[in-house]
């Protein structure tokens, strides 16, 4: 089973990103489970999205304590419990313009960064970084297939479909350290 945690703040699209990723895995024939926990639907409060992917039905109904992947939408969250349970085998993807070396002090992980904000702005998406991060994720995990991810981004983006697909492709190409 692949266990993934997305950490963001309300309004950043971490929840939507989790669901897009779940849908993409689902469309490639996997069993998935994705859920979010948050303290009320408010902008700015921390939101955790949990995604499980497996070849058989998923029965667990609990948080992911030992993630295979952590995607952090906001480096200001790194001082909290965002990296709990992550170890040297965990892929940690951070949305930041800073280099991987800057985050080494947080621990020994398979660390990658992506400047999601830059990609979002260049694609006329303002501060919405989720498509870029999904693209970067697909590159790092080599799954789901980029074509399927693009298809799901198109299906599920309420507006600016073409811009979101481009941001996803940019994220795929630009993730640092891959």
């Amino acid at each position, binding site marked *: 089973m692949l266990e993934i945690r997305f950490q963001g703040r309300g309004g950043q699209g971490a929840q939507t990103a989790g*669901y897009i990723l*779940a*849908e993409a895995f*689902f469309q490639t024939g996997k*069993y*998935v*489970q*994705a*859920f*979010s*926990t*948050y*303290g*009320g*639907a408010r902008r700015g409060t921390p939101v955790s999205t949990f995604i499980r992917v497996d070849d058989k039905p*998923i*029965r*667990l*109904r*609990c*948080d992911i*304590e030992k993630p295979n992947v952590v995607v952090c939408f906001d480096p200001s969250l790194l001082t909290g419990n965002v990296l709990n349970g992550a170890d040297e085998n965990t892929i940690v993807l951070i949305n930041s313009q800073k280099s991987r070396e800057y985050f080494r002090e947080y621990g020994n992980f398979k660390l990658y960064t992506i400047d999601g904000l830059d990609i979002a702005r260049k694609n006329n998406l303002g501060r919405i970084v989720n498509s870029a991060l999904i693209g970067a994720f697909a590159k790092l995990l080599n799954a789901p297939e980029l074509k399927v991810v693009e298809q799901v981004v198109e299906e599920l983006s309420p507006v600016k479909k073409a811009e979101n697909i481009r941001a996803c492709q940019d994220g795929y190409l630009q993730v640092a350290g891959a």
Partner: protein
Amino acid sequence: MTAHRKLLSGNHAVSYGVMLAKPKVIPVYPITPQTPILEKITELQTAGELDADIMTAESEHSAMAACITASLTGVRVFTATASQGLMLMHEMLHYASGARAPIIMANVNRTIGSPWAFWPDQTDSLAQRDCGWIQYYCETGQESLDTVIQAFKVAEQVMLPAMVIHEAFYVSHSVEPVEIPGQETVDEYLPPFTPEHRLDPAIGESWGNVVNQEMYYRHRQDMGRAMEHVCDLAQKADQAWQELTGRGYGIMEEYCCDDAKVVLATMGGLAGTAREAVDILRQKGLKVGLLKVKLFRPFPVFQVRKILSAIPKVIVMDRNYAPGTGGFLHQEIKAALYGLANSPEVHGYLVGVGGVNVSPENIMDLVNRAMAETAFPESVWVG
């Protein structure tokens, strides 16, 4: 449309169950984490998939009052709520069962204030266990969808309302593959609601007049008699559903209980995590089983006695808590086993109260702990 599979949250799965059951009136008031149920129902109505009057009320109390009056006119009625909303409905919950209105309501378990929070905790609905409503606790979105349809079938046979309950986030906001049954299947399973008595000026019947002591006594007795049929009818309704769709849940489920020396007992989403713990412990050679209690009201006393009679140890896990009482399921299971020869030792642990995470490792620790200690009469805090 024929049966098809898609990714749905537990809440949206409920909405599709509602659509297929074709209620005519849906009085609503939004509350986290239930609101997506009503949002999707509204979308389905707008898209022409659901032909129902959706009434927005000024409070949950008014929403339930509207449910009762609508139901008494002889139409199928649905609503949904959670936590504080359910608390505000409390007076009307008794009124609904007393008026023999077979309303179906989804409740998404969420902590009750104060202090204010949004986490999965079953105390909100369990505290309504004595309101005369049937209560089902569901583990997955698929189960919630299927149970909404089953609940209408059962409730309308006994003329009592029913709650279909799942937990916040772990089920309500969990997106998973769900099969949406075909409309023909549901139509075959669930006949139109045509009650013998209904409020209709053309017929001239009424409800709500003042009664004397004996009439009240007889009315309560009738409610009790109706409730006595529910275990049997719910079992049959589930079997019929299984024959049509291949999916059945029973009113309680025994998982690996056959040769078990110790049985975990719980409700809702925790059962899923417990299955994983049972499998791991079995691999290690420990004969553990799981009893998932789905129907909580009426409490299936005879089934519980039958299943647990030969089991040496039972470990009840409650994601709920009543100060001064303890865990609700712990209390109910102890009461159900009273007077049974060779009654098992019943351990009650308060886990996951307030939405605290419960992992398979936590559950395995609990089993090890219970194996090493003698059961206390009261529920024990763990973690």
